């Protein structure tokens, strides 16, 4: 709260043509064009059974493919002319900041730890670790607090889902324990 600046959180109204070509911004529409081309090629390979005079399973995919190519190209042309997308605003987002890749990498790591661990050590423990990892990556300190909250959250969700809703979640080491193993 130290500095008092005017509301920089709000971007200019008109699509500012000041910035030039941005490779990062072009990547998404370029990928859409590629996806569109892929869709069109793959649509041609869909087997069309039997009757021929009505519209088969290929037509709609073709249309979607052309839509993707067309819109992707239109966005690319727009970017080359200096019409840029406006980053989405949100209460917790400071759109004046650049991307914090380290935090994203830590979150990705936590996520893949969950993918690897959940079938081995069960939902309760794996989700607790995931929550703790994610909260820590986002800046929660000291380290034990997210772990404690994660364990409570894992316990509650495990009980609610397996016991109350009878949806299966792997119990891990708690196999056969009442409330934790459906």
């Amino acid at each position: 709260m130290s500095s008092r600046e005017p509301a920089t959180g709000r971007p200019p109204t008109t699509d500012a043509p000041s910035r030039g070509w941005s490779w990062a911004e072009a990547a998404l529409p370029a990928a859409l064009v590629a996806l569109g081309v892929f869709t069109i090629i793959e649509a041609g390979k869909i087997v069309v059974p039997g009757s021929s005079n009505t519209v088969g399973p290929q037509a709609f995919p073709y249309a979607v493919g052309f839509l993707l190519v067309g819109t992707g190209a239109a966005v690319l042309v727009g970017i080359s002319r200096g019409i840029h997308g406006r980053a989405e605003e949100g209460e917790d987002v400071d759109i004046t900041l650049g991307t914090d890749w380290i935090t994203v990498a830590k979150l990705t790591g936590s996520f893949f730890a969950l993918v690897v661990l959940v079938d081995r050590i069960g939902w309760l423990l794996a989700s607790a670790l995931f929550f703790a990892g994610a909260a820590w990556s986002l800046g929660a300190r000291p380290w034990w607090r997210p772990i404690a909250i994660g364990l409570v959250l894992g316990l509650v969700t495990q009980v609610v889902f397996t016991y109350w809703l009878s949806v299966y979640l792997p119990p891990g080491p708690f196999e056969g324990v009442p409330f934790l193993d459906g």
Partner: protein
Amino acid sequence: MGDFGPLLDGFATALQPTYLLYALIGVTLGTAVGVLPGIGPAMTVALLLPLTYTLEPTAAFIMFAGIYYGGMYGGSTTSILLNTPGESASIITALDGNAMAKAGRGAAALATAAIGSFVAGTIGTILLTVLAPSIADLAVQLGPADYVALMVVAFLTVSAMLGSSPSRGLASLGIGLFLGLIGTDTLTGQQRFTFGAPALADGIEVVVVAVGVFAVGEALYVASRMRHGAIPLVPITGRWMTRDDLRRSWKPWFRGTAVGFPVGTIPAGGADVATFLSYSVERRLSRRKHEFGKGAIEGVAGPEAANNAAAAGVLVPLLTLGLPTSATAAIIIAAFQSYGIRPGPLLFQNEAPLVWALIASLYVGNVLLLVLNLPLVGIWVKLLQIPRPYLYAGILTFAALGSYSIGASTTDLVMLFALGLIGWAMRVFGFPIAPAVIGLILGPIAEEQLRRTLAISQGDPVALVDSPFAIAAYASIIVLMTLGLVIKRRARTEAELTAQAATPAREPSVGSG
């Protein structure tokens, strides 16, 4: 209209203790979710979709209805008390609401928002009750070609209205349509875009896509550029509502309702446009234009009413035509589908008890929400103070839970994350999310209706424009789009001007870290 028997039966169902409990859970969750930044009603309903596997339909829909209305109430609390630029639907409320809070009239702002939401929600629900059955009666006569036309209208208007440019909205729609293609073609049994993977033969789960692009995408986006430092919360001060506040509020409540409901029923960008429109109406009619942007109570009362009336309006095409005009509505359609129910004109005939219980629960929910929001607002404010690392870690954990609980499959988790990355990129580069979700859910239905039309006509495309209704629908696209874009542009410029005029009263604590 005229026959209130089914509605009374609906009340008899909705007022049973069990269902009242579900309604209470729904509105509580909805308010909590509306208050929490970063979570919207679309995401919440998506996260709770797995519940439809165990819960009976009436209970589930009563709960979803509560979440849907609750989310609209909760959002206003956030925009009034939190001193940061928020999501677009609440920007307008934030303008004057936040200024009021800072001037020590926070309580009055909250009260006018809550009562306005109640008035608009109730009138909106009454209009829904009266209009929906007659529209459903008319809609029964619509043929497949008419549905194709309606869906084209929804696709184009929703895509063109949202986001920073029409091409980005349409691209987002394309992403959703592509994801909807994956799986087995319903008419011929051919696998499409499954890459030979058995996991994809039934298509990607709607829950995984919706939660991926909404929840994981949002969490990654926030994580990558999080606002650090203390949460800039304005304390609630002042009196709830003076006689003067009431005198200045009641007309905007009704005008907001009148503006919001029709906007909600047409696919024109949803609550967003309704709030802009209401704000500009109030400003124009006011004798104290100079107060707008600096804490005019009309600028809170009108848009908040419009917001809730639009939410009720969205339910009209949803229940009578099966046509979602917002992302939340699209996900509610997915919930219907998981029970094997298709929303549309036959819903009022085939599932009458369910629909009327749902509508009755909207009335009940509105009353519950008024009680929950006014006296208990202090509790919701506590939610706003949850440290952000825990909040977003929690969102990610529930996102993972929602996807993993479908079938205890780690493939779903990997897919969830991949879709989250797409949702993140879309947010960074100004691609709206809603068209993708609508494309995903409406795409397969549109394809089926299109092919049915052309099968009946034996491939003759003229059949697509052969009914007066279809022609009218296509013609309305042009009208809707020009009208909508003009309104949006004008309202936005006006709002920005007001915001600029009011900047001295509104200094977000940026750059403190």
